């Protein structure tokens, strides 16, 4: 196992969150008498897939599944889990968020500019979204589309990307301390047993460091977080890397283009 694989496989969802997620999925997949035939079949199929997923995650001990149960859930397993259960990232987030007042948990884009860009892109037709994506790719430095990011853990990916954008490492440390996430920053260097990140923290980190949560979680176009469709998520993944000034320019450009050419 090389270092990169090791890092990825060791990057886990925190134990508390994992339990909450598994419990929620169990609850969601219980067939109730009020379910119609289609829903029942669907739930049964998903239940089977979920059990298979857990079995796959369980290490073998003398050719038998370990009695300790499945391995800890890693961030790289999240897309598969979402596919199997038909849940969205927001569902997971709502499940793990401590919400005693009943207020709806809704993560948000780091800035108003990003939120506005996301809503504009969601309005566009797929062909036009492609054009916006091409425009952003021409303006964004190629270093942010580095394929190495894919094999990194969310925090490592975050700090690598931020290291490109911060003007010095000392500044980045100061920033992380101010935001109260220095502990997360430090975790990159400590043994794997501490290397688990709460799901809530992902939203917080993405907002604090101005990156797309979709990119931070390493999701593909099939899984969305804050946008309505996957293509918009890809646009936003790159858009969030742009410097503030360029973000405003692109937002203005898309707004002008929609006024001129329409959205669809």
């Amino acid at each position, binding site marked *: 196992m090389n270092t990169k694989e090791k890092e990825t496989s060791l990057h886990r969802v925190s134990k508390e969150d994992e339990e909450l997620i598994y419990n929620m999925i169990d609850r969601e997949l219980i067939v109730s008498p009020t379910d119609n035939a289609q829903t029942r079949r669907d739930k049964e199929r998903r239940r089977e897939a979920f059990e298979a997923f857990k079995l796959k995650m369980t290490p073998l001990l003398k050719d038998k599944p370990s009695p300790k149960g499945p391995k800890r859930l890693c961030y790289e397993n999240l897309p598969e889990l979402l596919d199997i259960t038909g849940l969205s990232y927001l569902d997971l987030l709502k499940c793990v968020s401590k919400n005693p007042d009943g207020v709806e948990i809704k993560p948000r884009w780091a800035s108003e500019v990003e939120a506005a860009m996301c809503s504009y892109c969601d309005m566009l037709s797929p062909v036009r979204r492609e054009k916006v994506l091409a425009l952003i790719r021409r303006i964004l430095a*190629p270093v942010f589309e580095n394929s190495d990011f894919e094999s990194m853990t969310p925090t490592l990916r975050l700090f690598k990307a931020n290291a*490109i954008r911060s003007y*010095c490492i000392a500044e980045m440390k100061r920033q992380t301390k101010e935001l109260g996430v220095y502990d997360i920053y430090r975790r990159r260097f400590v043994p794997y047993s501490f290397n688990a990140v709460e799901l809530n923290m992902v939203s917080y980190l993405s907002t604090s460091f101005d990156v797309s949560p979709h990119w931070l979680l390493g999701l593909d176009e099939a899984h969305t977080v804050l946008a309505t469709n996957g293509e918009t998520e890809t646009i936003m993944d790159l858009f969030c890397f742009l410097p503030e000034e360029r973000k405003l320019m692109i937002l*203005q450009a898309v707004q002008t*283009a*929609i006024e001129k*050419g329409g959205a669809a």
Partner: protein
Amino acid sequence: MKASVMNQIYATPLTYPYFDEQALRAVEPMDVRFRISTLEVTEKIAEEYGFSLDRVPEMLLAQFQAGRHITQKMKSIGLSSVAAAEMSGMNKTMLSKYFQGKRPFSPSAAVITPFAYNVMHESCHKLMFGTEGKIMLPSIYAEMARAMAQIPAEEKEALLRKAKTQMALYEKQNPRDIANAPHRDLSEMIGERIFELSDDKGTQSYQLFGQETPYGVRNYIRQFIIEDFKRESPRMSLLMYLAFETGLALDYFVAEDFTKMVPCYYKVGDEVRELKDQTTLKVIGICAALPAEVRCKLIGEVIGAGLGAEFQS
């Protein structure tokens, strides 16, 4: 400065360009190139790379050559140093000293543009390097050029009118006495231009040339950022080095509207095209001169016009 170095400078005839740029570019690594082009050669470099300790730094030589060039040209035009000072906002005494040819011509970044454009009628790059420079537009301006090429002439004119109105409004709030003098704080503008380049490369601005960035450049830019651009604008030799190393004309760093005297190029895919359309050049020039908050909106509108045309096609 050593007497032997000064004697070498006085003995060097005025040639165009002022120094051999190709030979300097061939020097590796970059920190040695920085050292021998802006500072004196150290003993270590002399031993390791075989340079003479009496070698004249190219940027210094260029500044002396620029002084001679100015003296010659002023004589041929018949313009006095007092008149030139009035036209450019330069100090009269300082300018008359430059005219004597015994001093390197290293004016502050704030006055070089009016001097080059109003008095010498040539680009800052031509003035300081003795050769025509060129500017490969940073991605955001290149995108404007692409967008302007896609929209009809009437729309281009409308955008130019809008840009001119914005500029007139800005000039009204920030009047200037001398043509081509900067309206805004030059340090801030130079910082923005450095950021534009580093944003395109996706590097930290003080590592403009990657990990190899010479210590002198890195340190200066870092200080420049830490002090929030309150520091006085960089010295001329550093700006000349930046222009030389980036391959961009000096005008890009010191002139508010860098499109006036220097040919601009942009990339479409792998093809490099010269930007010849005057309307586009004027719009880009105005956008480059405006402060960030106004510029963002205007550039967005220009790019949006091109994107809108793409949407319709």
